[in-house]
């Protein structure tokens, strides 16, 4: 069996580039569809093609299925505020019928999109001819019943709900509840609970805005619903803490049920400590027993039953600790990396700089660094592990820390819910890697 941290047998499917930077990547529940959102407000959905008969040793590829403009740039004249069209997050709804539904959000507005297929067209209308021109009603002497005829497959996306005007601050997360009826949206200071059918109302369930903004000490950075317990959700903060809340306990969940924080050695505290402890992403494991958090230098796995420290800590790029001054000056220290679990919760993945991404096997404790770039890998080739040299002597094929390109950041990655297929967004390119089947 293959462990995920030893991808000697990966193949690469490379797709063409966006004109804009990819800002979110998400598989749907079956893994058949992969959605990307970009800085230009567009959503592109890829579909997994069935394995071809010619090449049965390869899984099918992902090809473009649908593309649409989800959000447009806006200007709030009252507050003199520019609202970017950048898609911050996409979350799929579980599939209940032939159509697919997803939520997409920018800083202010969440939209529910329906993606449906049309492969039949009605022909033989009475009031209009085949071109669509209206027929003269006085010339119609008989009635006919329109007939459904097959046509080339058309995939249509239509906005079914628009959830607007509920967030004063910038939305960083949306998460569909396991009840499949509600979802939460979180901005820097508040979290709202919505019903998917109702757009003119939402419940505020967390509000950490202080009465006096001068007293502001932390903001909400991410939030997620528990995968099975529909009353439970978590949110992370810029101070490196996670709060678990129970919606059965109170209508307003300002008081947490559990508080997760790793104790810090006060003597090691520096100017950068709080900034690098800020959690950029929080994800429950599929089992619902663990959650994972990403801060600037590491990924931590927490057992929901243990609040005082994580059960596992993985260093993503510890060599950056001695570069924090420059990373603060070029703002890279504020980069928000995401993280994800594989389907079986045995491996985790997160991105880094220089188009590197890291995978950790929780069982063997082995890790690997790979690169997502056209220069380093040809399609159908196996990925070669990469190494950053930290000591004085740099070995051949290693890259020194000072040679890393900090403009090539991998912030968004996604793992197929069942298979060994991963999607990696490198600025405006999307890479899909899969295990070769022996």
């Amino acid at each position, binding site marked *: 069996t293959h462990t995920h941290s030893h991808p000697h047998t990966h193949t690469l499917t490379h797709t063409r580039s*966006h004109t804009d930077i990819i800002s979110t990547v998400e598989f749907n529940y079956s893994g058949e569809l992969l959605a990307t959102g970009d800085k230009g407000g567009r959503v592109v959905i890829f579909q997994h093609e069935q394995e071809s008969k010619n090449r049965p040793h390869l899984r099918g590829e992902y090809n473009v299925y649908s*593309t649409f403009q989800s959000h447009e740039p806006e*200007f709030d004249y009252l507050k003199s505020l520019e*609202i970017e069209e950048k898609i911050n997050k996409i979350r799929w709804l579980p599939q209940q019928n032939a159509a697919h539904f997803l939520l997409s959000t920018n800083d202010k507005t969440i939209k529910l999109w329906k993606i449906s297929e049309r492969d039949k067209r009605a022909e033989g209308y009475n009031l209009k001819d085949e071109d669509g021109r209206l027929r003269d009603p006085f010339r119609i002497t008989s009635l006919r019943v329109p007939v459904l005829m097959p046509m080339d497959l058309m995939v249509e996306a239509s906005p079914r709900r628009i959830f607007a005007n509920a967030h004063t601050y910038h939305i960083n997360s949306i998460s569909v509840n396991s009840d499949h009826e509600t979802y939460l949206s979180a901005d820097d200071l508040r979290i709202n609970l919505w019903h998917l059918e109702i757009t003119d109302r939402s419940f505020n369930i967390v509000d950490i805005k202080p009465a006096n903004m001068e007293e502001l*000490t932390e903001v909400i950075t991410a939030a997620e619903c528990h995968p099975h317990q529909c009353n439970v959700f978590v949110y992370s903060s810029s101070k490196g803490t996670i709060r678990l809340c129970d919606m059965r306990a109170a209508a307003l969940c300002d008081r947490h049920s559990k508080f997760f924080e790793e104790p810090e050695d006060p003597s090691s505290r520096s100017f950068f*400590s709080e900034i690098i402890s800020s959690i950029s992403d929080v994800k429950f494991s599929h089992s619902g027993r663990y959650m994972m958090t990403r801060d600037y230098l590491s990924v931590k796995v927490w057992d929901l039953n243990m609040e005082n420290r994580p059960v596992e800590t993985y260093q993503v790029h510890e060599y950056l600790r*001695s570069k924090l001054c420059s990373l603060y000056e070029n703002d890279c220290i504020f980069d928000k990396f995401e993280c994800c679990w594989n389907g079986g919760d045995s491996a985790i993945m997160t991105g880094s700089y220089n188009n590197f991404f890291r995978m950790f096997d929780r069982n063997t404790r082995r890790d690997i660094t790979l690169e997502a770039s056209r220069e380093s890998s040809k399609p159908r080739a196996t990925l070669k592990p990469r190494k950053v040299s930290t000591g004085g002597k740099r070995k051949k094929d290693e890259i020194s820390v000072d040679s890393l390109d900090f403009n090539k950041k991998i912030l968004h990655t996604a793992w197929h819910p069942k298979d060994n297929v991963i999607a990696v967004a490198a600025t405006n390119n*999307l890479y899909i890697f899969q295990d070769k089947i022996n």
Partner: protein
Amino acid sequence: RDSELGRTRMGTGSHCTEIQDTVISPEKAEEAKLKARYPNLGNKPGGSDLLRKRLQKGQKYFDSGDYNMAKAKIKNKQLPTAAPEKTEITGDHIPTPQDLPQRKPSLVASKLAG
């Protein structure tokens, strides 16, 4: 060349002095570097200034009066560009017409799908 090692001389009573190596953590060394470059940097790093700047992302304070004043100034002379400061809070800087980004039209199709 930055070194992680600092050396201090420590006296031990009336006898000969000892030279002891102390290791400064890489993080603290970086902090010292930053404070050397920006002596005015506030002492509350994760504090309200940084957070409030984050909350105000996208805010362009202007009204038509400021806008027209700034436009008139540009015609007469070049405005000096403000040096980027880490402690600057949005709202103290009045944007000029040059500073406001052009509102770009949304692209119809993604090349990825093309």
